[in-house]
């Protein structure tokens, strides 16, 4: 007789979502730069900010309180409300 066992997982099916459409242009776009609070993340993001502003983007800076935990929901909503795209920097 075949064995019956119980599913140890959370029994959720992964949901596949399409990627957001790529930005057609940077000029005038509000872009978020998210610093996850790793050392030297700011060095990378400062340089990106310069380069993106040269291309006409409007930059909004964000900080995660700690790199060890997922971004708080308020922060994610704030980014979503204010930007059309976000770049998240890992560093060290």
């Amino acid at each position, binding site marked *: 007789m075949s064995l019956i066992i119980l599913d140890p*997982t959370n029994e959720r099916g992964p949901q596949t979502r399409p990627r957001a459409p790529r930005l057609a242009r940077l000029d005038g776009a509000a872009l978020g730069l998210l610093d996850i609070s790793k050392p030297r993340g700011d060095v990378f993001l400062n340089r990106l900010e310069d380069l993106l502003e040269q291309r006409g983007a409007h930059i909004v800076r964000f900080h995660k309180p700690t790199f060890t935990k997922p971004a708080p929901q308020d922060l994610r909503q704030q980014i979503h409300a204010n930007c059309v795209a976000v770049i998240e920097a890992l560093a060290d």
Partner: protein
Amino acid sequence: MSGVALPDGLVAVVKRDCSTCEMVAPLLRELAAAKPLTVYSQDDPAFPADMRVVDDTNLAVSDALDVEVVPTFLRVAGGKIVGRTQGWRRDEWRALSGVAGLGAELPEFRPGCGSLTQDPDIAARLAARKSETQISSRRIQLGEREDPFDAMHARGWSDGLPLVPPTPERVARMLAGTSRAAADVVAIVPPDLAHCSVEKVAINAVMAGCQPEYLPVVLAAVEAACTDEFNAHGVLATTMAVGPAIVVNGPIAPAIGMNSGVNALGQGNRANATIGRALQLVIRNVGGGKPAGVDQATLGNPGKYTLCFAEDEAGSPWEPLAVERGIPAGTSAVTLIAVEGPRVVVDQKSRTADSLARSFAGCLRTVWHPKLAQTCDVLLVISPEHARVFRAADWSKRRLRDELVNLLTLSGDELVAGYGGCAEGMPPRYAGERVPKFSPDSLFLVHAGGSAGMFSAIMSGWARGPGGSQPVTRAIKP
């Protein structure tokens, strides 16, 4: 009785493998000819021969009637049991049947046999059937030719070692280890932030190899791990080689046979090995946290299979860890700390507390990096022969912590990045300062290990404080 509608009249529950049932079989045939009688057979629908018998080989009726002994003889009126006896008692059978001369040729009394429902293996299956209504997890029927161990690996449920198949019977037995309802939510498990019921913990505990009496410890560990303070998401996701260590305090540890003595941090004890493993399996299977997925550890460490032990409270010169952390003495509790694997402090010569503290300090200097300070918590597992030295000197835990902090208050000049030809180190602002490597509240002391050997262990932690992982203590509920 629930779930079974009994016909009015007489009812008998029998099995062929019972000499008393065989003895009364002719009487049942005799009664059936004269009275409304329904006979249920537990092991053979052809017994008793030459009469109509209801097949109860799935024991549904026997179980619903709570039959402990066969034959069980009942009178039913209006769907309710109005009279009941078990075994052969001539006067009672006569009274119930209303047949005055019944069994005149038989002895007055003969005990019956154990009902099949009382067989331990069968009882477990029946318990599982009863709790089917409370078990809501998806049932997976493996193929007849599928090896269950391979099938579970193939589904991605294993940490690499074989798993015990979580059959409904085993899970039902596991659930009997707690008073909590199967559907109770224990925690929201990262990284998928999935609701985790007592039942899901029980399934993973079965797979890990736990006994039911370990379940309350596993539940407390899952609860502690999935707090914002412990930050199981970060502990899992970090590139650093850390994982949760579970320290168990209180009466439950000896009661379930946990090891706090010889080889306390090693292999060979079922409770130690499987409780720690069960927590990891919950994070893997319920939380969805897997190596090379959200778990991005550069190296990992063997403690990520399992790392759980009990404190030797009876032999300790100090109060237990959980008591120090606010749990009343005599209450069982788990404390979770995110740590690397253990490293040994070897000191076989110190006979004074001052000298031994210097050995501890020298070894502690190197955790994370000799030039980094105030980075992590440390779990210090102090062995009986080392603890004896501190006991003789009447050093409290607090005294030892303070001494270690003093011994490891270092010259900032020698810690800053670049000093000594080494780029790693503290930021330049520490130059000219005296810098304590640890604060007293980052040193966690527990007593465990075999009675011979002047060896203790250091398990250093991950990023400490609210921005990393903080040790969490939770009382164990029955």
